[in-house]
């Protein structure tokens, strides 16, 4: 349940920038390889935002595909699990993205 700690970090990083202003929407981008479960995070966000200006805000999560590059056949491809394997059979794969976990924007009153 590290999603609770992640939810607390979401709340604190938003509050640092929005202060006392009421926030109605928080938008997150989560890479598929970030190790965070969106449903669990949404549940924890309700708990973590309670009693703050974020209380009741809706959480909009966009999940980003991981991207990887095969060093053998030099192609780039999407990767949605951490198993580093290219369709060509090579495991010599460089992870380019997919571990992001960021607040992209918020709606403030």
């Amino acid at each position, binding site marked *: 349940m590290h999603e609770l700690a992640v939810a607390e970090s979401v709340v604190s990083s938003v509050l640092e920038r929005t202060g006392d202003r009421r926030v109605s929407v928080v938008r997150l981008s989560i890479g598929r*390889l970030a190790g965070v479960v969106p449903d669990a995070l949404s549940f924890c966000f309700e708990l973590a935002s309670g009693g703050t200006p974020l209380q009741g805000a809706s959480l909009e999560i966009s999940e980003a595909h991981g991207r990887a590059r095969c060093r053998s056949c030099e192609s780039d491809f999407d990767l949605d699990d951490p198993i580093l394997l290219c369709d060509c059979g090579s495991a010599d794969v460089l992870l380019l993205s997919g571990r992001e976990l960021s607040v992209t924007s918020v709606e403030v*009153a």
Partner: protein
Amino acid sequence: MCSTCGCGEGGARVSALDERGRTYDDHHDHDHGPGAGAHGHGSPVPPESGTRTHTLELEVAVLAKNDELAAANRSWLAARRITAVNLMSSPGAGKTTLLERTIQAATRSVSVVEGDQETLFDARRIRQAGARAVQVNTGAGCHLDAAMVARALARLGPDEDSVLFIENVGNLVCPALFDLGEKRKVVVVSVTEGDDKPLKYPHMFAAADVVVLNKTDLLPYVDFDTGRFTADARSLNRHVEVLPVSARTGANLEAWYEWLG
């Protein structure tokens, strides 16, 4: 655990053990007043409907605060030439036994930050093995974070030119996500857990600098395919080294000591 909000973070306790095994606690201030920032519990503010809102672009990394604290830990440790090793495993894989052996064989000063949800059991074992230790009890928390390690380091005061082990909470999931400021990450797996663990807990194995395969003295009694285990770990982490050892019998621990340097 914080009794007001139920969060795991605020409830972490750091306990140091003196030479006689007595403990003294470091009480963590946990602000619940209004305006307390991220972790405040002021009056609830109901959302208003029908109010015009505007979009504020943020683009901030959610774990930026933890990562900043981890970076501060890392430079504090580097300035003192302290090699910090983050030990992670499921409960019962043998992290503490491995540490007891390592302390007894060590040529450099060793100190340990012990993470568990509750009890001082492990810090006591480390002290008995001859090293200094502080215990971090995370309460409901399932992992250590950089802030807990910073508090533990202040209490522990590790020697310069030493080795610091951070024994994370037994859990193959959450600790993978939190940078503590360590130099290297070690995953300990015991053969009794089964050879399917890398693919079941891929994030942990993807993050490891080395995998210690413990309890090899039990290999004759369990169905554990070391070849499959190693191949699966490397499908997640191409060059990761797998060190088969038995912390109980001492078999092949030389390879572990050599890896530590």
